[in-house]
């Protein structure tokens, strides 16, 4: 059993500090040049840059602080770049990490991976594999979406989530594959070919989540590029992050920046369609209502027209006409009668004025022979003894001629 206070037992901090000192007293390690390929390069908002220098067998963590970067004329660092870095080796105690604290960096030309990338890209471009004319339009409303990716990947979950939200009507057929490692390129190509062989797929997404350039490398291999090019079904690529470009991106019919973006590009957003359905339903109802209103109005008009033509209406009209005519007739008759009676009165007056009675009234008399009622106007008409009647104003006087 060890005593905790024995000098032979060190705390982690003590050991770390010791190792750190050991490294820092070594003069060679305090000003050293290391050559390798940059990978996993990240610049934080603080301005500090972190990356790994690697070669075929080993890797070394590197920190390139902002002040050092600004002071040196370092090139813009990117993954795959071959560089020689100058700095000091020390231990980052918190993480127990041996690091190169970089003072300056010299580029050694493009890295091997980057070179291969550029060569393949140039060759395939010359072949016309990236031509715009080769790009096929994506189906507006795919019902089956093929996905080529790893079944375990977070990328798949992300894509399924997007598809479920945007277009739950769709059907997904996963063609599982490795997405990194030596066997990945052939596996990805096979998975693509398999979906084409199956055939019943409208669009294919080839995807992988973010990672280092080595992890994404399978998508820069020629077999993958060829498989995408020969796919009869349009292909969307969604590999890595926004800043990652792979050969697969160039060959694909549509390049999406991430798996999520690829899923978004693959299907329409049904919520907008739902709104359209509602709008159409509304329009239908409005159109039908206005149509019915128009018809009702037309019907009312026709009804009025019909009523005007009905026998009853005619009869009423005739009855009224009859009334009017009768009234007119009466007026006319009255008029005629009054006209006649007027005329009669005139005649009577005239007659009256001519009447002998008037003369009699003035003192004249009419004498008649009783025998024949003849008016006696001469002495020769009567003889003595004839009975005569003398008519005066107020009566008759019977007399005898002497």
């Amino acid at each position, binding site marked *: 059993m060890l005593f905790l206070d024995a000098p032979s037992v060190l705390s982690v901090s003590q050991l770390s500090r010791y190792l750190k000192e050991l490294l820092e007293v070594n003069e060679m390690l305090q000003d050293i040049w290391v050559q390798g390929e940059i990978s996993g390069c990240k610049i934080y908002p603080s301005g500090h840059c972190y990356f790994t220098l690697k070669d075929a067998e080993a890797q070394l963590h590197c920190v390139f602080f902002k002040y050092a970067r600004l002071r040196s004329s370092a090139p813009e660092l990117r993954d795959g770049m071959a560089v020689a870095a100058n700095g000091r080796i020390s231990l980052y105690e918190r993480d127990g990490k041996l690091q190169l604290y970089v003072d300056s960096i010299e580029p050694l030309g493009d890295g091997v991976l980057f070179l291969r990338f550029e060569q393949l890209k140039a060759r395939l471009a010359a072949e016309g594999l990236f031509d715009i004319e080769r790009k096929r339009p994506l189906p507006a409303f795919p019902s089956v979406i093929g996905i080529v990716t790893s079944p*375990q990947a977070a990328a798949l979950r992300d894509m399924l989530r997007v598809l479920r939200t945007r277009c739950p009507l769709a059907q*997904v057929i996963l063609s*599982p594959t490795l997405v990194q490692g030596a066997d990945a390129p052939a596996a990805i190509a096979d998975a693509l070919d398999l979906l084409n062989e199956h055939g019943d797929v409208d669009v294919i997404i080839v995807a992988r989540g973010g990672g280092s350039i080595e992890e994404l490398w399978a998508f820069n291999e020629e077999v993958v590029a060829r498989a995408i090019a020969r796919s009869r079904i349009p292909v969307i690529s969604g590999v890595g992050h926004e800043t990652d470009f792979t050969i697969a991106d160039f060959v694909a019919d549509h390049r999406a920046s991430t798996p999520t973006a690829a899923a978004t590009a693959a299907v329409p957003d049904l919520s907008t369609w739902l709104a359209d*359905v509602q709008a*159409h339903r509304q329009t239908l109802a409005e159109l039908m209502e206005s149509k019915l209103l128009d018809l009702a109005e037309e019907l009312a008009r026709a009804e009025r027209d019909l009523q005007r033509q009905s026998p009853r209406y005619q009869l009423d009209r005739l009855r009224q006409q009859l009334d009017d005519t009768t009234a007119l007739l009466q007026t006319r008759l009255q008029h005629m009668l009054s006209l006649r009676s007027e005329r009669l009165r005139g005649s009577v007056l005239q007659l009256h004025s001519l009447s002998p009675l008037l003369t009699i009234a003035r003192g004249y008399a009419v004498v008649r022979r009783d025998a024949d009622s003849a008016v006696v106007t001469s002495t020769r008409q009567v003889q003595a003894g004839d009975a005569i009647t003398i008519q005066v104003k107020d009566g008759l006087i019977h007399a005898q001629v002497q």
Partner: protein
Amino acid sequence: METLTFEEAFAQLEAAVAALQDGQMPLEQALHHYEEGMKLAHYCNELLQKAELRVQQLRVNDEGVPVVIPFEAE
């Protein structure tokens, strides 16, 4: 109608609206378009409401033919 895809039903719905918009048609025909359109709208709605993303996966069977099997999420 049950055999229509959403897209087909939606296209027919649009056609019904266009036909009704045209206006000059007998009432019976207008009613037909209206009822058909309403049914289609209902159908579209229902499809969306009921829809649930179906996920399957491909596997090569013993004869080397790709077959579709249910996808088991990990």
